[in-house]
């Protein structure tokens, strides 16, 4: 067995390595260009009080979690208990964006399952969602005191992701 016969084996090992890494990647997770950019501005009506409005400007000086959800979104139900726990622990303000939804349906869901949000913004035609690069609900953004997006989570937030990534990041940002 000389070194030459080992070359194909080595190449095969490299190929297997690439394929193994590729299998572990989630093609639905598209890195967002919005991370470390100012959160896009908007001013739209709230869900519960249609006469009141909300803008990210209102949250200047606070670290907050912006969660995109909808009553028709099945995966949102999965993350709902995690958000309820987050709200109970009072880690940071939680603002919801009700994306492409019917007001009645959204209010019904919040009434039935509990409302973790301090404020919910109502994005009926999905325009705010487009500005935030939303392509699959639920998605969540950690926004810092200066109004810069520091982290984007795509898909339902698991208890582990909340405990190991999002809450430590929020606590870190609150200190600065």
């Amino acid at each position, binding site marked *: 067995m000389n070194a030459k016969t080992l070359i194909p084996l080595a190449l095969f090992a490299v190929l297997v390595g690439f394929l193994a890494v590729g299998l572990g990647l989630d*093609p*639905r997770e*598209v*890195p*967002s*260009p*919005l991370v470390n950019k100012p959160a896009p501005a908007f001013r739209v009506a709230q869900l519960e009080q249609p006469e009141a409005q909300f803008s990210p400007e209102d949250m200047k000086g606070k670290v907050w979690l912006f969660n995109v959800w909808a009553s028709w979104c099945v995966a949102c139900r999965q993350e709902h208990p995690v958000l309820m726990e987050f709200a109970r622990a009072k880690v940071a303000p939680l603002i919801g964006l009700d994306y*492409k939804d019917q007001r009645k349906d959204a209010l019904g869901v919040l009434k039935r399952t509990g409302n973790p949000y301090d404020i919910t913004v109502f994005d009926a*035609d*999905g*325009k705010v969602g*487009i*500005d*935030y*690069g939303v*392509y*699959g609900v639920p998605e969540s953004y950690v926004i810092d005191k200066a109004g810069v997006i520091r982290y984007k989570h795509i898909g339902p937030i698991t208890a582990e992701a909340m405990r190991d990534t999002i809450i430590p990041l929020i606590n870190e940002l609150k200190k600065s």
Partner: protein
Amino acid sequence: MKYFYAWVLLLVACSSVLAKDAVLLAEDPVVEQRLIAISEELRCLVCQNESLAGSRADLAMDLRRELRNLIKQGKTDAEIREFMVSRYGDFVLYRPPVKPTTWLLWLGPFGLMVAGLVALFVYLRRRNSEVAATTGLTEEQSKRAEALLQEGEK
């Protein structure tokens, strides 16, 4: 026969009316044509193997509506692509831009081809010299070999 021609005439007249209707349905054919040209080069984020032009996903419809508005506002193609890239990243472009992070993607295949050609060249050179080395007989040896071959033929 007279009626036949009348019928044909009527049908032709009707079809041109229908055709006009179809044009009217697409609000503004110029905008629509540009929209298709641009969105065929953009990826739908929901069904990632479909273009934005071909996808029937909800988000694709919303995005086409946004792009239609941008076209009506007189934005250039580059500005519209920038609108999409600033929200969803280079991933939405079916033709990734050439920049340091995509050099490997653009130049890698050519690099592989050059490496292959070099390997082939080196291999052929080595084989040639090996062949030359094995037939490196002295004059005496080749005469003897010839004699042996002729003997064999008898």
